[in-house]
C-alpha cells in the first residue's frame, strides 16, 4: 500500500475514536417542540427576564420569520426542520442553583471528569475561573471573589440581564445586530445562556476567563450568547472550549459572541472547538453556525481571535473585527481541521474603518479523508481608513487524495493609501516526511500529529500556555488514523 493510501485508510479509521462520545442521563426540562412566540416567551420566562428582554427576543423572532437560510457557504447539509426541534433544555436542578461545587449534581461532575474538564482543584490551582455551561444553564462559577475585587463581572448572561441590565441593554446587539443574519437572529430570539464579561476602566483582568461549553440534550439546539465588554484601557483574555457526546441526529448550534473594546482596551478570545464531528460515514455531528464579531470601538484598541476548530460536522464561522477606532488592531489566528465528511467554511472579516488600523490573518487549514475545508475572508478598507494595513496568510495542508482545500479571499479597498498583502500555500504531507519520522522510530500516527502541529505552530503559539498543550493533543486526536 502506498503511503498516501495508508494515510487515507487511517484517516477513515478515525471516526470510532471520538473520545467524548457518551451521554449523561440527567432529566431535562424542555421547551415545547418547535418555534413560536410561545417558545420564546417560555425561555424568557424560565430565565426570569424583564419585559424589555422578552420584547427584544420577540422582535428578533418576528424578523427571523421573514429571513432565508443563507446558502453561499461551501457546505452541504439536509434542510434543517426548525419546527421539529427543541429550543430549550436545562438540567432539572437549575431552579435552585448550586452554591458551590459540592452542590453540583455528581453526574454533572462525572461528565466533566470524563471530558477532562478540570473544574476541580487542578484548575483552581492553575488560576482559571470557570463558568461552565452544561447544556443551557450555567451550573458553576468559581473565582468570583478575585474577580469581584478587581471589579470584573464574569457571570452567566441570564444573571447579567437581571443584575446588570444597564450594561446589557447598552451593549447587547450593538456588535451583532438582531437583524444581522439568519442564525444570529435565531439566536437573538431563543438564546439560552452564555457568558457575560465586563472589565472596568484600566483593569487588567487578574486571570484567564474560561468557559467550557457542552451540548448534551438530544435534538436540542444550543444557542449560546456571549457578550464581553472591555472598558477603556482594560485587558482580558477569554478561553472557550467544548466537546459534545456522541449522537446520531444532527444538532444545530448557533452561537453569537459579541466583543466590545473601548479606547486602549484589548480582548484576546481563544477557542478550542471539539464538538462531535459525525462518524466516518458522515452521519450525525454538530452543525455549528456561529456569529462572532468584535468591535474595536475605541482608538488604540485591539481584538485578537484565536481558534482551533477540530470538531463539528459543519462549521460556518467567521470571527470578525470591526476596526472602528483609529490605530486599532484586529488579529485572527485559525487552525481548522476537517476529516472524514466534515465541512468547514471559516475565516474572518476585517473591516477597516479607522485610520492606521492594522489587521493580521493567519489561517491554517488541514483536510483529510473526504473533508472540505474552505477559508473565506474579507478585508475591507473604507475611504476614511488612511494607511490601513492588512497581512493575510492562508496555508492549506492536504492528507490523502479525496479531500479539498479552498481559499476565497475577498478584498475591497476604497482607500489608496491602504496596503494589503495576501499569501497562500497548499501542501501535502510528503511521503518522505513521514518516512523520515518513522525511520527514526516515530509511529505514523504520531508522525502526522507532529508534522501537523509543526504546520500550525504559529497559531498554537497564540494560545495561552495550558490551552496550547490541550490543543496540540487535540490536533493529534482529531487526525488519529490518518496514516497506515
Amino acid at each position, binding site marked *: *500500500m*502506498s*503511503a498516501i493510501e*495508508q494515510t487515507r485508510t487511517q484517516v477513515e479509521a478515525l471516526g470510532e475514536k471520538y473520545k467524548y462520545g457518551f451521554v449523561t442521563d440527567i432529566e431535562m426540562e424542555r421547551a415545547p417542540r418547535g418555534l413560536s412566540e410561545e417558545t420564546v416567551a417560555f425561555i424568557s420566562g424560565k430565565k426570569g427576564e424583564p419585559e424589555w428582554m422578552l420584547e427584544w427576543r420577540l422582535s428578533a423572532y418576528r424578523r427571523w420569520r421573514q429571513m432565508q437560510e443563507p446558502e453561499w457557504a461551501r457546505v452541504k447539509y439536509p434542510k434543517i426542520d426548525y419546527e421539529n426541534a427543541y429550543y430549550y433544555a436545562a438540567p432539572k436542578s437549575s431552579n435552585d442553583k448550586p452554591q458551590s461545587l459540592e452542590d453540583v449534581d455528581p453526574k454533572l461532575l462525572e461528565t466533566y471528569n470524563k471530558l477532562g474538564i478540570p473544574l476541580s482543584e487542578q484548575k483552581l490551582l492553575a488560576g482559571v475561573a470557570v463558568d461552565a455551561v452544561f447544556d443551557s444553564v450555567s451550573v458553576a462559577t468559581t473565582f468570583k471573589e478575585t474577580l469581584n475585587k478587581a471589579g470584573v463581572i464574569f457571570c452567566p448572561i441570564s444573571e447579567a440581564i437581571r443584575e446588570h441590565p444597564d450594561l446589557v441593554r447598552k451593549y447587547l446587539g450593538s456588535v451583532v445586530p438582531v437583524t444581522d443574519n439568519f442564525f444570529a437572529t435565531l439566536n437573538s430570539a431563543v438564546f439560552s445562556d452564555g457568558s457575560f464579561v465586563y472589565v472596568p476602566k484600566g483593569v487588567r483582568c487578574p486571570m484567564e476567563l474560561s468557559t467550557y461549553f457542552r451540548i448534551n440534550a438530544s435534538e436540542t439546539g444550543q444557542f449560546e450568547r456571549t457578550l464581553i465588554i472591555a472598558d477603556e484601557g482594560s485587558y482580558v483574555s477569554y478561553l472557550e472550549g467544548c466537546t459534545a457526546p456522541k449522537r446520531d441526529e444532527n444538532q444545530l448550534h448557533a452561537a453569537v459572541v459579541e466583543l466590545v473594546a473601548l479606547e486602549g482596551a484589548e480582548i484576546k478570545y481563544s477557542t478550542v472547538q471539539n464538538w462531535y464531528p459525525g462518524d466516518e460515514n458522515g452521519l450525525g455531528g454538530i452543525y455549528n453556525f456561529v456569529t462572532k464579531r468584535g468591535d474595536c470601538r475605541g482608538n488604540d484598541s485591539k481584538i485578537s481571535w484565536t481558534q482551533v476548530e477540530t470538531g463539528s460536522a459543519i462549521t460556518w464561522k467567521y470571527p470578525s473585527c470591526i476596526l472602528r477606532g483609529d490605530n486599532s488592531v484586529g488579529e485572527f489566528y485559525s487552525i481548522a481541521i476537517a476529516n472524514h465528511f466534515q465541512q468547514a467554511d471559516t475565516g474572518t472579516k476585517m473591516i477597516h474603518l479607522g485610520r492606521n488600523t492594522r489587521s493580521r490573518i493567519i489561517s491554517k487549514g488541514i483536510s483529510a479523508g473526504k473533508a472540505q475545508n474552505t477559508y473565506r475572508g474579507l478585508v475591507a478598507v473604507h475611504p476614511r481608513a488612511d494607511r490601513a494595513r492588512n497581512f493575510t496568510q492562508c496555508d492549506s495542508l492536504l492528507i490523502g487524495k479525496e479531500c479539498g482545500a479552498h481559499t476565497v479571499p475577498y478584498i475591497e479597498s476604497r482607500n489608496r493609501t491602504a496596503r494589503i498583502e495576501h499569501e497562500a500555500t497548499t501542501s501535502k504531507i*510528503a*511521503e*518522505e*516526511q513521514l*518516512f*523520515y*519520522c*518513522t*525511520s*527514526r*522510530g*516515530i*509511529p*505514523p500516527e*504520531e508522525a502526522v500529529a*507532529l*508534522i501537523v*502541529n*509543526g*504546520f*500550525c*505552530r*504559529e497559531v498554537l503559539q497564540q494560545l495561552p500556555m495550558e490551552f496550547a498543550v490541550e490543543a496540540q493533543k487535540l490536533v493529534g486526536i482529531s487526525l488519529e488514523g490518518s496514516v497506515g
Partner: protein
Amino acid sequence: MLDIKDLHVAVEGKEILKGLSLHVGEGEVHAIMGPNGSGKSTLSYVLAGRDGYDITSGSIIYKGEDLTAMPPEARAARGVFLALQYPVEIPGVTTVNFLKAALNAQRRARSESELDAMAVLRLVRDKARSLNISEDMLRRALNVGFSGGEKKRLEVLQMALFEPSLAILDETDSGLDIDALKLVAEGVNHLRAPSRSMLVITHYQRLLTYIVPDRVHVLARGRIVAEGGKELALELEAKGYGHIVKDAA
C-alpha cells in the same frame, strides 16, 4: 548482524536490486561504493523499510529476525538507523522536539521509560558540541534552511543519540567541508563498537581514510560486483568503476 541473501527489489514495477547478497558481522564496518544510479540508496531504503520498495524475492535477516516483516519504526526501535542522503525538512517542528519525540518513541517501543525535555537536552548537548552544532540550530525547525553540511551533521548527531546496532550512512560525507568531514568521521569512529555494525555508502575514498572499513563492496546495476579490503577503495579511486563493472557484466 545483517545477512542479505539474493535480494530483488522493485520500485514502481522496475527492478532496481537484482540479486544482492551481503553479510555484515557484528562490530564490522563495511563500505559500499558504486556508480550513480546503481542502487545504493535503494538498498538503504529497503533496510530502513521505506514504503514503495517491494521485495520481490530474497531475504534480510537482522539479529536473527526477518527485518522485512517490521515497519520502519519497529526497525528503528530495534537499532536500525539510516542517515539519509537527502535529509528531509519538517517546517514548524523544532529539531530538539523532533529528537525528543524520536528518542522517546524508540524507548517506548522497547518498554523503557521516557525522558523529559531536560534529560533529552542534556544528552543532546554534548554530542551537538562535538559535532559543532549550535543550540540555535537545535531550536530551529528540523532541517529547514540548514545548509547541506548542517543537515548531514544533524544526521550524525541522531546516530549518536539513538546508539543504533546497525547504522547505514548514505553519502553522509557528500556536501561536507574538510573540517566537517573530520568532525563527522570522528563522531562515527567514536561510535565504533564491538556490538555496532556500520554500512557506509560513499563515492569518496577520502572518507575511508578516516573511517577505515573492514570490507569494501562495489555495487553496480543492482548487484555486488566486487569486494575486498580497504585497498579496494584506493584502487577504485585510481581506476574508476569502468573495468570492474565491465568484468562483471
